[in-house]
């Protein structure tokens, strides 16, 4: 093989290898990109964890039905529920909803609440100014806690969204809290 061809081969191979490596980086870049894209579009229903400013006006011409659903994940020995199942909310109206959690184990534990909102197209209009999902929650053994979420729905929410589900999953974070 001529030296010129050999050099050209190695050069092209190096370019292709770099491309392959670039695609590897792309895979990892997908993670924050996916989060950003989802926050923008609400696709995976997570919503932002960003604190927001209070709204100034309430749109009383429409009201949105918000349903609260809870789930304790795995076999974590906690109870987790809300007294108010469903609320009618006007866009711009600030609401506070109480949730109750009880640690049925004898030992102290901590839990991480993860909130998701359905449908996806409504996610980014739900603004929480205060939520127990923002931080880990510690509860002593056999103790209980009252927690609140304060939220409002942005006035710009599309007209065709008339119902929302605010879904909380409780995960056992006791091991994570210790490290």
């Amino acid at each position, binding site marked *: 093989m*001529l030296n010129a*061809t050999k050099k050209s081969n190695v050069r*092209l*191979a190096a370019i*292709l*290898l770099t491309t392959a490596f670039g695609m590897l980086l792309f*895979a990892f870049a997908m993670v924050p990109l*996916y989060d950003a894209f989802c926050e923008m579009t609400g696709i995976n229903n997570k919503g932002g964890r960003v604190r927001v400013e209070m709204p100034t006006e309430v749109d009383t011409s429409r009201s949105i039905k918000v349903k609260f659903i809870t789930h304790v994940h795995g076999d974590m020995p906690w109870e987790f529920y809300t007294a108010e199942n469903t609320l009618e909310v006007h866009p711009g109206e600030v609401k506070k909803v109480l949730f109750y959690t009880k640690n049925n184990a004898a030992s102290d534990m901590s839990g991480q609440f993860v909130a998701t909102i359905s449908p996806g197209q409504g996610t980014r209009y739900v603004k929480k100014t205060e939520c127990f999902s923002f931080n880990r929650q510690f509860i002593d053994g056999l103790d209980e806690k009252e927690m609140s979420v304060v939220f409002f729905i942005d006035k710009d929410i599309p007209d065709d969204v008339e119902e929302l589900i605010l879904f909380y999953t409780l995960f056992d974070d006791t091991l*994570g809290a210790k490290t």
Partner: protein
Amino acid sequence: MNDGQNSHAEGAHPSRTGILRWITTTNHKDIGTMYLVFSFIMLFVGGAFAMVIRAELFQPGMQIVQAETFNMLTTMHGLIMIFGFIMPVFVGLANWMIPLMIGAPDMALPRINNWSFWLLPVAGTILLSTMFMQGGGPNFGWTFYAPLSTTFAPQSTDYFIFAVHLLGISSIMGAINVIVTIFNMRAPQMRLIDMPIFVWTWLITAFLIIAVMPVLAGTVTMMLTDRNFGTSFFNAAGGGDPVLFQHLFWFFGHPEVYIVILPAFGIVSEVIPTFARKKLFGRTSMIYALASIAFLSFIVWAHHMFMTGLPLAASMFFMYATMLIAVPTGVKVFNWVATVFKGSLTFEAPMLFSLAFVVLFTIGGFTGLMLALIPADVQYHDTYFVVGHFHYVLVPGSLFAVFAAMYYWLPKWTGHMYNETLAKFHFWISAVAVNLTFFPMHFLGLAGMPRRIPDYALQFTDFNQIISVGAFVFGAAQLIFLYIVIQAMRGKGPKATDRVWEGSHGLEWTVPSPAPYHTFGEPPAHVERH
């Protein structure tokens, strides 16, 4: 070691003998042969798993294995067939045929070529050994969704991840080699447009491999850290998302299925014109169609995820993009038919397998189009309808094209004609059995049978029995193929001419049969232009 300087005369012998020859060879024909031998061993291993699966599914209830073992067998069947058979077998054909078809003395990077191959038995051994580890081998499906494959997976999963990395590295290096060879080593008069279609399909496939195998590598690395280093890529508790896994996996996974079909298209485009004694119809649009299919393959991945709760806009986009792939694929099918039409046809084994490919792959394509329609997919997704669909495109699709290629080029490799009568037996038994095995699966899916289950409701029994019988017959028929190939390799059968087939065209038919160890030390004198 021989380098391109050719201190020997054209057609010299390998410099080493015995095992050492095979371990150290950098010759594309040797390496091609090793890839082919390795992949056919894997075909029989993966096939053996399928036989156990079908034996268990012969009747409702659990007779032969436990549910967890069954899940491991279905997972390993998929992994072995995809990563151990179909990908390496096409690389083997690429190694043997690309240099011959473009008038090059060897692949561009011969030592990397050797490493690419030898990674495979190592990776295959690691993968298969996981079946004997504590907790068993991978049992979460070849698509290994999180968190089943992370939080709930056996200990061996980390070895599975390592094997996937090795397989990926082998694939990427092979793809780089193919691209560099095609770009830099063609005979001087051969422009890209003059290249045989098989070479075109491999050029495009190689780019697909470079684009998506690294994404798979990233994904399994995220699995590894989720499992062992406390990350939460796919775990909601830590702020992650199991569905992110699916996006990443299928971004690799969809182009992957085009990686394993494009070379098959290339083979069929070589074989049919030879036995129709007529030029391939619409050569240029065939190449454009290949490029469109490859491009579209990047933007349809979420059609594997229609039931995960995608938002409406995303669902619509992926549905339309998926339906669109039918257009260039249809063009290819029509062009093959137009090549056959008004040809002067003979029906040797390569042609039989290629014609069956056109019909049966098209059936797989039809069910693919049905699957693209999301409302209908509600009833098809994760049922045997899907299993029927992908086995049609992979078995009477890709595998039949591989058989066509083997019969087509075996005389060139070995210098002897294979046994045509036995090959026809192999074809007919396989063609009937393949339909007996995979066609009823569509009905099972429509009737409500989910996939990846070792045990089913009573009403599914009859069709499962038909399928199992078909599968056993199909498996047995492959032993005929094994016999035919071994006999040809041993030098039985009439000597083959250089041209081998009356209607053949292309540089590979200008060298003697069997092809000398070194060919095209000097570029060919004449190249057909298009």
